[in-house]
């Protein structure tokens, strides 16, 4: 029943051909087969946001995506967007503002914040809260994350 089946994806710009079982999630494929461990496995239920990646440019939960169902799609993980100017600005703002402690949630926060800022270059505090409401953080208390996203948005507008 759980026989491996072929799938072709583009991951961080590179074509990848794999054989995986039907019920394998994209998160498992990334972390366990491809050693791309930036996306984290928090809840595996779609609740925490630590596994957020983009599929054809749209932010999604890697834990709720089945690898076989992503046939032909483009996956970008935090590793693959490191050179993106928006990610650089966000990373700098997170570092400057102390917006991470353990860092477990950070890759997901960055991908979600990038998705937000790419649609709205001048978000209000409330819009940032809304945009990141699906990304839980057990450490920071969120305020510094929100401030960092606002500050990255400011720096990008300059």
């Amino acid at each position, binding site marked *: *029943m759980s*026989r491996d*089946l*072929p799938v072709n994806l583009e991951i961080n710009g590179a074509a990848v051909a794999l054989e995986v079982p*039907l*019920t394998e*999630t994209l998160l498992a494929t990334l972390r366990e087969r491809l050693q791309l461990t930036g996306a984290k496995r928090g809840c*595996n*239920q*779609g609740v925490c*946001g630590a596994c*957020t990646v983009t599929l054809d440019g*749209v*932010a*999604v*939960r890697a*834990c*709720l*995506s*089945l690898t*076989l*169902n992503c*046939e032909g799609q483009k996956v970008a993980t935090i590793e693959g967007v490191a050179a993106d100017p928006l990610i650089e600005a966000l990373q700098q703002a997170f570092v400057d503002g102390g917006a991470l402690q353990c860092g477990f949630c950070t890759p997901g926060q960055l991908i*979600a914040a990038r*998705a*937000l800022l790419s649609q709205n270059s001048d978000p209000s505090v409330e819009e940032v*809260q*809304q*945009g990141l*409401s*699906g*990304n839980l953080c057990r450490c920071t208390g969120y305020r510094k994350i929100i401030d960092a996203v606002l500050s990255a948005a400011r720096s990008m507008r300059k």
Partner: protein
Amino acid sequence: MSVDQGVFRPASVDEAVSVLARLPDARLISGGATLVAMINARLIEPAALVSLAGVDELHGITENPDGGWRIGAMTRHRDVAAERRFTGTLALVQQAASLIANATVRNMGTIGGAIAHADPGLDYPPALVAADAQIEIASGKGRRRLPASEFFVDWYATALQSAELVTAVHLRAASDGVGLYHKLARVSGDYATVSVALTMSSGVAGIATRAAMGACGPTPILLEEANALLSGSPGESELNRAGELLAAAADPVDDVRGSAEYRRLLIPRMLARAFTEARAAIGART
């Protein structure tokens, strides 16, 4: 690959129906947000999946010549939440979509997947019942349509038979008036503890109101008797009575989101708040 494993990608509704008929153990996958969470929790272990992603007619929102709307089953919550053309009494559908989960989950989940799953805590079911939407269903015998109030039948159960799928949600043309969806949840993005969906329009005979309560029982609760009380020129006693009737008809669960007793207490209060807000909005407009 053996012929009955893996992910099937039909290009048409007919093809999807015939795969489902041939493989009774295959499961449909739309956004996957619920289905994959269930796989991860080992609640289900499908042998084959039928993805609706490649069926063009299931994507997107189109306006009918009569001013009504067709929302394809694969339309993401994100797109309904962004739909500014749902005005007047239909605004509640857009509001309900915008309150589902969070931005990332709204990028994934679809209206067809949500209503087919029929979790009692979902936001669409009460909104679609209040809006008197019709659910379009495809089977080997063709298409049929059911009012939303008949589509939801029990806890996690719908009128869908085996080898059937939801193809679209139809909304009648908006009336001038107000559509409201209020959701009480523990935190932003959680399933509703209780929700209320309400449409109100005004005419010569006073106001006309339709209200449905969500997360208060196996299916959304809409009572003609309560709607009648809330229509015409209702006063406080009618509003209270309608709240009592809806609370009495509720069969809420006891769970982490709230006790059944708490949910019953919330029903009249949430109804009153939504009703008062809608009435003020209508008043401001006339």
